[in-house]
């Protein structure tokens, strides 16, 4: 128990004994997971394993029935709503890329910047140099500099994924939750995304959910396999993929 307590304070994200059920269906079942500061973790698991529900719990969209969810060792995330959690520094990329389609790429990034988000602040907002420079840097990172004035809705699927990652960067969170970033991407784009995430991981903690095993292998980080809302196996990709139970779950019994 003592060991658990110390881990709880040192981990950036700490989930312990989390349960969620929807109408009797146990989406998350006694889930315990910790993420150290600076770590990148890949989450795999078959459909319905509870990966997205877990992200919903961390970001405040879903309230767990029981269990502990701590951020930075002190903040109880189960008591906060999406807005507060985003303000604390947890950013999320959705499974289906969600950008503001009728606005330009630059405006999408401007909206994502972690500056004053109050009604008054935005009503009287004026462009400032540091903000412009930050947007500039993000545009460069996600390689959309030439497309800055295009509407986000006109981007290809892969570019939208990158724009959403760019929005995460503009948000400058401590923890990034990235849901299926390479879905619908070409091999080259997948490779570039892996490079980008590794780059971002130099100063941020990342949790990435992905089905694409080549991509997960390329990330080369610790892997957690979820099944029926609980952790089935944890370790390197080779350890996890050679785990009998994981194989059984993926291939069906």
């Amino acid at each position, binding site marked *: 128990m003592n060991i658990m307590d110390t881990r709880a304070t040192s981990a950036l994200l700490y989930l312990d004994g989390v349960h969620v059920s929807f109408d009797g269906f146990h989406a998350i079942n006694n889930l315990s997971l910790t993420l150290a500061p600076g770590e990148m973790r890949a989450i795999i698991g078959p459909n319905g394993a509870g990966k997205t529900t877990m992200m919903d719990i961390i*970001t405040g*969209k879903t309230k767990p029935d029981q269990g502990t969810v701590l951020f930075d060792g002190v903040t109880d995330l189960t008591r906060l*709503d*999406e*807005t507060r959690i*985003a*303000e604390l520094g947890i*950013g*999320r990329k*959705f499974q289906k890329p*969600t*950008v*503001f*389609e*009728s*606005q330009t790429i630059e*405006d999408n990034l*401007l*909206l*994502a910047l*972690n500056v004053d*988000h*109050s*009604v008054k602040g*935005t*009503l*009287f*907002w*004026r462009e400032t140099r540091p903000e412009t420079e930050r947007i500039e840097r993000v545009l460069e990172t996600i390689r959309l500099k030439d497309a800055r*004035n*295009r*509407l986000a*809705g*006109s981007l290809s699927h892969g570019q939208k994924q990158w724009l959403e990652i760019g*929005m995460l960067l503009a*948000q400058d969170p401590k923890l990034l939750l990235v849901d299926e970033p390479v879905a619908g991407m070409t091999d080259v784009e997948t490779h570039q995304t892996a490079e980008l995430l590794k780059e971002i991981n130099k100063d941020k903690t990342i949790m990435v959910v992905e089905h694409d095993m080549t991509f997960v292998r390329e990330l080369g980080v610790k892997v957690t396999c979820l099944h029926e809302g609980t952790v089935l196996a944890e370790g390197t990709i080779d350890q996890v993929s050679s785990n009998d139970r994981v194989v059984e779950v993926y291939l069906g019994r």
Partner: protein
Amino acid sequence: MMPHVLTRSLDRSASIFLLVVAALGVLIPLSNLLLPSGSIFQVPTYLVALFGKYVCYAVLALSIDLIWGYCGILSLGHGAFFALGGYAMGMYLMRQIGSRGVYGNPILPDFMVFLNYPKLPWYWHGFDMFWFAALMVLVVPGLLAFCFGWLAFRSRVTGVYLSIITQAMTYALLLAFFRNDFGFGGNNGLTDFKDILGFNVQADGTRAALFLLSCLALIIAFLICRAVVTSKLGKVLIAVRDAESRTRFLGYRVESYKLFVFTLSACMAGVAGALYVPQVGIINPGEFAPGNSIEAVIWVAVGGRGTLIGAALGAIVVNYAKTYFTSGPLAPYWLFMLGALFILVTLLLPKGLIGTFNEWWEPYKARRLSDAAESAAREDGVSEPNPAE
């Protein structure tokens, strides 16, 4: 802080719109008052009052476009805020009648004498002062919108459910105001107004001045809306409209934004109602009828939601058509025509008159936009939630 807000909000079409409204606001009253009656350029008084009514509707349409076109809040009860503003003004006008009423009671309006009210109800106090009534024109609709919005937006009531409860709100007010013991004249409402700020409400000069003031209100409302939608707050509103939960996950308190814009919009609707009442000479519970609110939404859809100018234009065009058709042999078919208009606009011009015009015009205006961006803009128009939903 203000100058940069103003310069940003005035693009070319906005400036043209403001100039046209200002010109009409000055020229129509002048022509009515200065030219001899019978001259072809003289605008008769009845038309001044009619146009004044349209301008008030245009302000109401702006207030709806601000929340619906930019924030995706479809209110089907905005007529309630309009009517509340109207009642506040009507109460002032009733108190101005004084002892000139049929019963000659210096304090109690006629309907209260008729209904045997022993004394003035407490909520009628203060309305003999114009400044107080003018304040209530803003405060009453604003406060109702704030309380309603606070409950609805905090509970995350959105989409069609929100539309339904706004409809229920205006219907509840309709029923309440119909009651004689509610203290607002029941079925008959408030009428027989004599004067406003000492001027006869029937006089040509007063009507001309009210028309001018309505145009001024339209200009100010338009400037406020433009300042809001061209600010960063405007971008947040569009973000909420297009992807509400995404906006939340970026750390925006969506309910605060909705509450702000909903309350602002209700205050604008209240001002529109307050200017409407002295020009038409009556306010009764009929103004709360759900049909009125729905009609106002149709004006915005016809003109083009999310364009502001389109909303104002839609209000004037549809109401002109209404006046034209309901005074001729086609009168019994007007509601069918209105319904058909709404269906046709939804199917053929989903972006409304101004939205469609912009679509044709912009490729010429801004060649710097790539072809891809333009086609995407067209696609957006189709995929926007359609007003019939």
